[in-house]
């Protein structure tokens, strides 16, 4: 019994990512084909060279969703879904399949076509139910964090507000330096604060954008990695925790932490042998669906002490060039959140940064060689949380 991980047994040899945005003229099929080709072409592989596919998408059903547009012949395709961590789940399944020896080369693909629904925000679909299911937007659920955090740590709501604005502004600054981002312009803290309110004290700029997009990654056994690239990324850890929803019923839950994130981070650090994430990681891509989420994640992922995230944010610790750059690509804030693709979009930024291929304007300012992605789905008190650690050096 135990969570042992597959440290250094599987390597990522290619990652691709489409531009994210309102692709009114492009279908999910178009985005899938582009993401897959972006991933195959750099290493000279064809679609039939992949032994098995895992497709992450929240809205579409089965493996045919991928086999049809790619016109695959006789290939296994599994469609996976795990709330907003769907893209990461595809990577996890593909990696474990390779680690098991079942396949030599597997691809994780993620896609979401959000903007065809005709509604603002992410489409929420529920199975038929008894009508007592909570009817609340994600923005509203996450908006409860800011006042709870301020109260618990004796920080003024103004100081917390300042930190949240810094997070939004920082991620837009990074996104403004990323050609694939949905929003490619800087947003000042003043603009963040003046934006119309969506829920609680959260304004438009405290929320992730809504975009279509696709991304993909190819994984092989570590010993085969150099057949495909000189600079593979080794999978150091993959961890997933599905919460049991107890936070919604437990009077001790105080909306200042996500226990599922703490658990998945600790598991991932143990798998990867990381003892000092802030000192060892070159960067982290985290699930900034709302600005308070990113603030709390800094503590849950062990990047700073409890009650200090707001201060560290304001000190620039997580800015480009800071102690530990967070969301150097611009995050969900700048990319929007096509559910099936987001986790793999995070992997793409690790791929670029650790291989030294990110543009100079998004330079991390350190030469460490480990990166973290964190992807969550659900709400405070009831979520799934995924953490991966990737690195350039095996062993």
């Amino acid at each position, binding site marked *: 019994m135990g969570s042992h991980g597959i440290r250094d047994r599987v390597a990522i040899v290619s990652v691709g990512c489409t531009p994210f945005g309102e692709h009114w003229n492009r279908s999910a099929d178009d985005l899938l084909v582009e993401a897959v080709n972006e991933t195959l072409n750099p290493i000279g592989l064809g679609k039939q060279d992949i032994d098995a596919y895992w497709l992450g998408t929240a809205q579409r059903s089965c493996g045919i969703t991928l086999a049809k547009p790619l016109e695959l012949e006789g290939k296994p395709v599994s469609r996976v879904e795990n709330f907003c961590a769907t893209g990461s789940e595809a990577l996890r399944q593909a990696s474990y399949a390779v680690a098991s020896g079942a396949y030599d080369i597997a691809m994780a693909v993620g896609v979401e076509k959000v903007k065809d*629904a*005709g*509604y*603002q*925000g992410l*489409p*929420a679909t*529920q199975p*038929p*139910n*008894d*009508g*007592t299911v*909570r*009817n*609340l*937007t994600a*923005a*509203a*659920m996450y*908006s*409860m964090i800011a*006042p*709870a955090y301020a109260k618990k740590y004796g920080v003024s709501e103004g100081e917390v507000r300042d930190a949240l604005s810094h997070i939004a502004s920082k991620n837009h600054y990074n996104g403004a330096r990323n050609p694939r981002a949905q929003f490619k312009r800087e947003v000042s803290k003043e603009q963040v604060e003046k934006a119309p*309110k*969506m*829920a*609680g004290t959260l304004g438009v700029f405290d929320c992730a954008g809504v975009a279509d997009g696709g991304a993909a990654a190819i994984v092989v056994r570590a010993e085969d990695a150099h057949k495909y690239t000189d600079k593979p990324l080794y999978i150091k850890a993959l961890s997933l925790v599905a919460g049991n929803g107890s936070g*919604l*019923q*437990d*009077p001790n*839950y105080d*909306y200042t932490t996500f226990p599922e994130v703490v658990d998945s981070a600790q598991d991932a650090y143990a798998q990867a042998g990381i003892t000092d994430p802030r000192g060892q990681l070159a960067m982290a891509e985290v699930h900034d669906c709302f600005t308070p989420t990113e603030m709390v994640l800094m503590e849950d992922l062990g990047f700073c002490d409890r009650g200090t995230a707001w201060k560290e944010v304001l000190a620039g610790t997580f800015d480009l060039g800071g102690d530990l750059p967070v969301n150097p690509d611009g995050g969900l804030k700048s990319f929007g959140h096509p559910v099936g693709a987001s986790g793999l979009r995070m992997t793409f930024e690790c791929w670029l940064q650790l291989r030294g291929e990110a543009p100079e304007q998004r330079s991390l300012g350190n030469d460490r060689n480990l990166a973290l992605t964190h992807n969550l789905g659900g709400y405070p*008190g009831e979520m799934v949380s995924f953490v991966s650690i990737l690195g350039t050096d095996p062993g």
Partner: protein
Amino acid sequence: MGFEAARLALRSAGDDGCPNALWFSTVTPAYVDKTNATTIHEALRLDDDVPAFDFGGAQRSAVGALRTALNGPGTTLVVASDIRTGLPGGGDEVSGGDGASAVLVGDGPAVIAEYLGGASQSEEFVDRWRAPGGERSKLWEERFGETRYLPLGERAFQAVLKEADLSPEQVDQLIVTGLHTRAATALAGRLGVAGENVVDNRAGAIGNTGAAHPGLLLTSVLESATPGKVIALLVLADGADAMVFRATEAIASFQPSRTVDAQTEGGAPVTYGKFLAWRKMLPLEPPRRPEPLRPSSSAAGRSLDWKYGFVGRADPDTGAPQMPPLPSGSDPIPMADVPGTIVTYTIDHLVYSESPPVIFGIVDFDGGGRLPIELTDVAPDDVKPGVRVEMTFRKLFTSDDIHNYFWKARPIRGAN
């Protein structure tokens, strides 16, 4: 509203309040074909063998249900509820009120008002009428109805006094009500009862709640009556129905769970725009979010205790209520009457609602248990951590003509 009134009536009756029938009457039913009384029955958690019937259609059905219960055996909970709609600018819009009343009818030492007798007069005339499902009533010339109602009312009143062997001077409280206000007012002055003994119709604060009004006025009189007092109720609707009661010794110790006065004083203003929107007379721009799915009848059927009764289940390890119950839950824990406190809250401007914005609170219940739940009857500025709340049974939305009933939390009036 019907459930709320029924719940208050049963609470006031305490241990004596265990009806073996539930009768519900309204002119504005949530459903036809399907019985509405069963919704109240389920939310009250009455036993399955307690019949629940609707007395539908007309204003007069409500007073008819009351009289029938008074003449029958057993303990019957008679509930009446009404939403008085009228087109903007019309008299019914101004004079109407929404309300519900419930009267528990039975025998035994706990009875607070003894039924001395009743009488009716019936006559066919078209004075006030409405097509089924229509949003307004139409009225004949006012004087015509008055000339019909006055003699009908006089005859019914004289007949009931004769049956009870009383004279008009012995009536301590006279209630005359009906949607024909002019006839009711005129009649009250012609029955030989002193003016100071005529009960105020509460038109100023509440308006005329139609089918619910006879029970509402009777309730308010009983809340302050003393033993031995004689109360006459005369209702004008397509005839006249009269009943006479005498307050018993038990009324001296009667403790209403929430008086009509307390509810009237606890009111809050509603803007006219919101009022019209709630009435579906002013269509509002919907949020650009998907409309809710209709609740699944089979799924609802599997969670009757939770959805209608607000009953949690005990956590096997801690004993704390699981809300909603989990597969591991053990003994049922009724939570509908358990107050709670808001721990934190948020205001959602985006989510689909028939009355945006949605105000949502995390509520910790006294004695254990927590539930994130929608708040109601509260202004955004009045919500804050620490506010005390109670649970109230509400319609969350309607989809495919199915009304989705569940519970919301409401600040306890006078507690915050």
